[in-house]
């Protein structure tokens, strides 16, 4: 049996160490990780995947801890992938989200994994989605993704979730205006955490107005990944009400509002299933995954071909000395690949 097959067997048999190692291989982009993820695939699709994003310090990890505790009390198992996209250049990082997991210490049925960007923000969303698959295949009932909401990469990261939750801390008024447009569009649920602090009511009110103005997510054009053209045939049936993102208040530090939030998750889940939106989102994710893999593979082929033709340096020399130009070179290097494709 290959190492990958043995590891996969152990993961499916419920060995924590195997789950941990599979995620490591995914993170490392180890040779053989694709075989692993490919083997995981048929065992996925059972976990409910919840994304939690929001500004730094909004209380995401504290809330994740309380959510995990709640689900454990209901007898459900939980996986958490906490993504820290910061410090992508040095390679080093201090990953601190785990410190907040105070309610679930020593409970192996809450599987918490910290991940950093390793200088490759673009690849992080793929690695996150793959880590979620590992936890799903392992048999986790709920998988929670935590990431700070700052830009497109984070939006892509949290896009691996079925239900996207955006935490908005109470503020002196312009908090809501400051939310990044992209983040607002992907929100299925807003949470005003730190509801014990001044300004929470006002923030709730502002969010409510914004949602009613239709600036938040609506199901049909949620545009999670922008591959809308794939799914034109799966439009929502006209008799289903579109989802209006609810606004839930929580105090993560003492667990207030967590029950409300969990109920809201369940409502969104029911909506996803009854409206066909869950299928639509999953199809969209699969379409994106296929495209990403093909893009990476094609780029790899091109890199190999370039290497075989003597590396980019020699070509640059040719351009600098006026013998050729980048367009001619690209045509020439691509020629064998193009021939293969056209021969078919």
């Amino acid at each position, binding site marked *: 049996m290959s190492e990958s097959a043995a590891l996969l067997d152990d993961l499916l048999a419920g060995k924590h*160490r195997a789950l*941990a190692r599979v995620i490591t291989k995914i993170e*490392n982009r180890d040779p053989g990780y694709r075989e692993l993820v490919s083997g995981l695939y048929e065992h996925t699709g059972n976990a409910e995947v919840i994304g939690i994003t929001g500004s730094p310090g909004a209380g995401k990890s504290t809330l994740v801890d309380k959510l995990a505790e709640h689900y454990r009390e209901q007898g459900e198992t939980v996986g958490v992938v906490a993504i820290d996209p910061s410090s992508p250049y040095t390679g*080093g990082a201090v990953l601190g989200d*785990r410190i907040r997991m105070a309610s679930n*210490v020593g409970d192996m049925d809450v599987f918490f994994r910290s991940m950093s960007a390793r200088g490759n923000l673009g690849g992080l969303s793929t690695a996150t989605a793959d880590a979620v698959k590992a936890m799903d295949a392992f048999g986790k009932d709920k998988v929670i993704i935590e990431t700070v909401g700052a830009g497109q990469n984070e939006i892509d990261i949290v896009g691996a979730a079925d239900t996207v939750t955006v935490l908005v801390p109470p503020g002196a008024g312009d908090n809501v205006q400051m939310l990044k447009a992209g983040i607002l569009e992907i929100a299925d649920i807003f949470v005003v955490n730190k509801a014990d602090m001044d300004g929470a009511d006002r923030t709730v009110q502002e969010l409510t107005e914004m949602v009613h103005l239709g600036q938040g997510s609506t199901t049909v054009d949620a545009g999670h990944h922008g591959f809308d053209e794939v799914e034109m045939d799966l439009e929502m049936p006209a008799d289903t009400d579109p989802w209006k993102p609810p606004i839930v208040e929580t105090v993560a530090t003492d667990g207030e509002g967590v029950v409300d939030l969990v109920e809201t998750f369940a409502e969104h889940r029911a909506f996803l299933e009854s409206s066909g939106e869950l299928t639509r989102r999953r199809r969209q994710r699969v379409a994106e995954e296929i495209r990403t893999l093909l893009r990476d593979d094609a780029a790899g082929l091109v890199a190999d071909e370039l290497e075989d033709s003597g590396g980019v340096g020699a070509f640059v020399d040719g351009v600098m000395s006026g013998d050729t130009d980048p367009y001619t070179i690209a045509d020439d290097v691509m020629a064998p690949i193009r021939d293969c494709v056209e021969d078919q």
Partner: protein
Amino acid sequence: MSTDQSQRSIRCLVAKVGLDGHDRGAHVIARAFRDAGFEVIYSGLHKAPDEIVQAAVQEDVNVLGISILSGAHNTLVPKIIEGLKEYDAFEDTLILVGGVIPDDDKAELKALGVAEVFGPGTPMEETVEYVRQNAPER
């Protein structure tokens, strides 16, 4: 190929066990490890052995650095090692202990499976270099 390009990193859990409330040393180590390019998972203060085991197993760290100042190393470290063994995580985790450890105890810890003990005043570069040389592959 771009997707097969390995992106390994040394992952370290810096764990602070026992009741003493000093974590400056652990913080300094965490920062030095980060600057060396390692990924550091910091456990926070006052961790019980089973929390350390849970974190080390789930995070699949190559290196577990245990900082103990309370003198309780003789009871705490064996518990951690036992827990790691229970999850098949002992063999390929480099276990380091930092703190004031008498020589007799040092030998005992090493016999249990601790790779190295770093006393106070150990230059940070020495610890970082030790980790670079000895961190098991993943």
